[in-house]
């Protein structure tokens, strides 16, 4: 069996190997193959899984997540068995494994540790902590330890910016990491204590609600929104939603009532409601809190939407980083079924609706609604061409409403209190409130809810931020504003935001921040379109060249030109915003970039002298002629 497994390592699946400079990767899967599992066990495991998921290919991602958890990777044999049992080409399984960062074709450690590399985690000491962790565990970052027990790597923002440095251990969120905890973790791993038996302290996640408003201020009773809606009439309720002026809270701000009405008017009678809980924008964590403490209202909002548009099935797409919320959310769904708020005859009406939870697996792009739908269908999260929009052809090609967690919660409140109640707050084009995730250099990071129209200065006062240099509004895809602009207001008409609000004080280096964001987009690009796939990689190279002091005046123009191209020709929002960190800071702080530039006309973007190192070593030379200067004589 082992031999066969070796022979079966197709070039396709070994992404890292195929593309790495070193052409002879060590394939440890054979070794793991014999030691870790027997093929019969695996077959049974897969059969049971496939059956649990109704044998549907759209469940592929959900199945693979469980395979990954069981075997610490997706073994080649699993891929073959899944392809056979789900009646899909093996290439479909392989491409999904290779797309999502939490799935692996090669074994990860039995303890897989991922540390959030978000800028906020870095500001809280992540780099030093990572070094300490690597030393304690005797494992290199990005690698699996020789004995296969532990692996360590970076991951994109895990949504714990108010309590970092954070990470994931075997998929479970860990927060507020420090050297004491790292020592304890190293000991637990050394003595092979299963993660399930670790102290709950490691996994404590605080809501940190600092300021409550329209949505967080009170909790509506279970079923109250639905009863109100049915009593008022569904058409009337949709009108109330219209009056409320509620716009999508993910950031784009499309009018919610309009979206629901479009879906309702579609010919196709099979429709879907999807909640986008793939909160991946670095610096955003408000959905985490809503899912933890306001889940009933969220599901109530989704059920309301279903009743209005005539959907029978809903999905909550939960980001993989929030896996720890999966069980509690299932319990809430179960309670609602028992209370007659889900299932058939909801609230005594002729309404049937239920909600399934789908979990993501580490792909920021799945926050884009059409990519999210692809992912729900068990495919790679690649944004679709639009039109058609999801509201007419979404999940399985059927009309689908996709809304943010906060939007559904707000809709439920509007159903209870009416549209005017909501519209009385906020500004002309931005009614109601916005929940912000505040992190970075401030004394009280956490969740703050404000009526739209609040000024940045006011927020900074509340969260205890002094000596502020600037704020990243709306995460890396948003805008960086400097301290001359703090009178600007949060509203769709000025600073639109999905809720990420990262504060930077004067001790921070803007270029470090921009570099972290630029790396993030290059890492998260789905690779579908040329400008984003190649462009974000080039943008990273070009920025690094300047950051490392090898840039000249022309390089800055080039950076801007490249950024503009990516912004204007990319397929979806990711590419269209990927250059924002560079473009918005270049506009505000040209001098910070210029300070990095060389006076000379041009310098290579790679380390020229370093490029002679191999030849120097092999020829055992170190004479002056065996060296090159970077900038020329």
């Amino acid at each position, binding site marked *: 069996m082992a031999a066969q497994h070796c022979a079966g390592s197709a070039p396709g699946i070994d992404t890292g190997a195929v593309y790495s400079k070193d052409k002879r990767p060590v394939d440890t899967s054979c070794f793991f193959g014999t030691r870790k599992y027997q093929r019969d066990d695996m077959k049974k495991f897969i059969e049971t899984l496939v059956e649990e998921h109704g044998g549907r290919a759209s469940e592929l991602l959900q199945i693979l997540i469980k395979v990954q958890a069981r075997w610490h990777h997706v073994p080649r044999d699993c891929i073959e068995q899944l392809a056979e049992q789900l009646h899909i080409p093996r290439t479909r399984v392989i491409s999904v494994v290779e797309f999502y960062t939490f799935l692996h074709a090669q074994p990860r450690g039995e303890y897989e540790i991922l540390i959030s590399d978000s800028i906020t985690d870095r500001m809280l000491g992540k780099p030093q902590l990572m070094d300490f962790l690597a030393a304690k565990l005797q494992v290199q970052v990005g690698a699996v330890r020789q004995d296969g027990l532990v692996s360590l790597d970076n991951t994109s923002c895990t949504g714990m910016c108010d309590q970092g440095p954070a990470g994931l251990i075997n998929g479970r969120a860990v927060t507020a990491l420090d050297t004491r905890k790292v020592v304890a973790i190293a000991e637990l791993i050394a003595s092979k204590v299963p993660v399930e038996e670790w102290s709950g302290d490691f996994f404590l996640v605080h809501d940190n609600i600092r300021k409550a408003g329209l949505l967080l201020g009170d909790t509506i009773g279970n079923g109250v929104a639905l009863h109100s809606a049915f009593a008022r009439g569904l058409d009337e309720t949709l009108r109330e939603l219209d009056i409320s002026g509620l716009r999508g809270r993910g950031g784009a701000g499309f009018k919610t009532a309009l979206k629901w009405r479009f879906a309702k008017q579609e010919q196709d009678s099979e429709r879907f409601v999807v909640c986008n809980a793939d909160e991946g924008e670095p610096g955003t964590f408000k959905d985490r809190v809503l899912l933890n403490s306001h889940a009933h209202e969220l599901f109530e909002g989704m059920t309301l939407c279903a009743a209005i548009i005539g959907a029978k099935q809903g999905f909550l797409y939960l980001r993989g980083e929030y896996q720890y919320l999966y069980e509690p959310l299932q319990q809430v769904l179960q309670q609602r079924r028992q209370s007659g708020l889900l299932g058939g005859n909801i609230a005594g009406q002729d309404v049937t609706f239920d909600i399934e939870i789908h979990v993501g697996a580490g792909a920021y792009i799945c926050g884009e609604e059409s990519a999210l739908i692809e992912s729900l269908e068990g495919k790679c999260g690649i944004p679709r061409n639009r039109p058609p929009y999801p509201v007419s052809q979404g999940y399985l090609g059927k009309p689908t409403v996709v809304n943010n967690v906060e939007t559904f919660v707000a809709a439920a409140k509007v159903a209870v209190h009416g549209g005017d109640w909501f519209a009385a707050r906020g500004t002309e084009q931005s009614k109601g409130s916005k929940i912000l995730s505040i992190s970075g250099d401030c004394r009280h990071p956490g969740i703050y809810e404000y009526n739209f129209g609040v000024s940045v200065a006011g927020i900074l006062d509340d969260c205890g931020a002094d000596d502020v240099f600037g704020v990243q509004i709306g995460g890396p895809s948003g805008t960086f504003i400097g301290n001359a602009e703090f009178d600007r207001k949060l509203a769709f008409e000025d600073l639109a935001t999905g809720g990420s609000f990262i504060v930077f004080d004067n001790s921070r280096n803007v270029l470090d921040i921009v570099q972290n964001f630029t790396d993030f987009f290059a890492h998260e690009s789905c690779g579908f379109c040329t400008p984003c796939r190649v462009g974000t990689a080039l943008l990273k190279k070009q920025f690094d060249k300047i950051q490392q002091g090898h840039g000249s005046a022309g390089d800055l123009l080039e950076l801007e030109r490249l950024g503009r191209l990516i912004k204007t020709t990319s397929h979806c929002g990711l590419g269209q915003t990927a250059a924002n960190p560079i473009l918005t800071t270049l506009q505000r702080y040209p001098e910070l970039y210029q300070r990095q530039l060389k006076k000379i006309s*041009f310098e290579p973007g790679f380390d*020229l002298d370093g490029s002679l190192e191999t030849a120097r070593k092999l*020829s055992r030379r170190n004479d002056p002629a065996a060296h090159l200067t970077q900038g020329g004589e």
Partner: protein
Amino acid sequence: MANKIRLATTSLAGCFGCHMSLLDIDERILELAELVEFNRTPITDIKHCGDCDVGLIEGGVCNSENVHVLREFRGNCKILVAVGACAINGGLPAMRNFIPLGECLKEAYIDAIGVENAQIPSDPELPLLLENVHPIHELVKVDYFLPGCPPCADVFWKFLTDLIGGREPSLPYELIHYD
């Protein structure tokens, strides 16, 4: 003609095919000689590049000497031109970029059939190889590019006569080739 255009040419990691192609302008070279003064080039055998108007570079950058020569050209030529596939994208020599340098050297000087006294050369007179072969635009600013492997004689002729005639050089469709 009082002020002749001063022209220099060189081949870095190239095969001199581009130079051969330049010579393919045949008798027009006499006309060219009326208009240009050749500085450092294999045609004159001048060893170092003096002040020049135009420098034509054939070949990519594969070793430390290439870097020095390229810099000498960039420093002395008002207009620097990348000529041919190798100067533009590394070309054939860049195909070694997919094999680690150590292995290339080992294959050539240690493991190859018939090697005696196997050792990797270490004479300080010899230029050291760079880890990768690079197109020249990754090391210096380049003003014009003449693609082709090699660019045909008419490409050189069109480009140089445009330049000498004070026109912005441009190549018609039939002269743009990468092969």
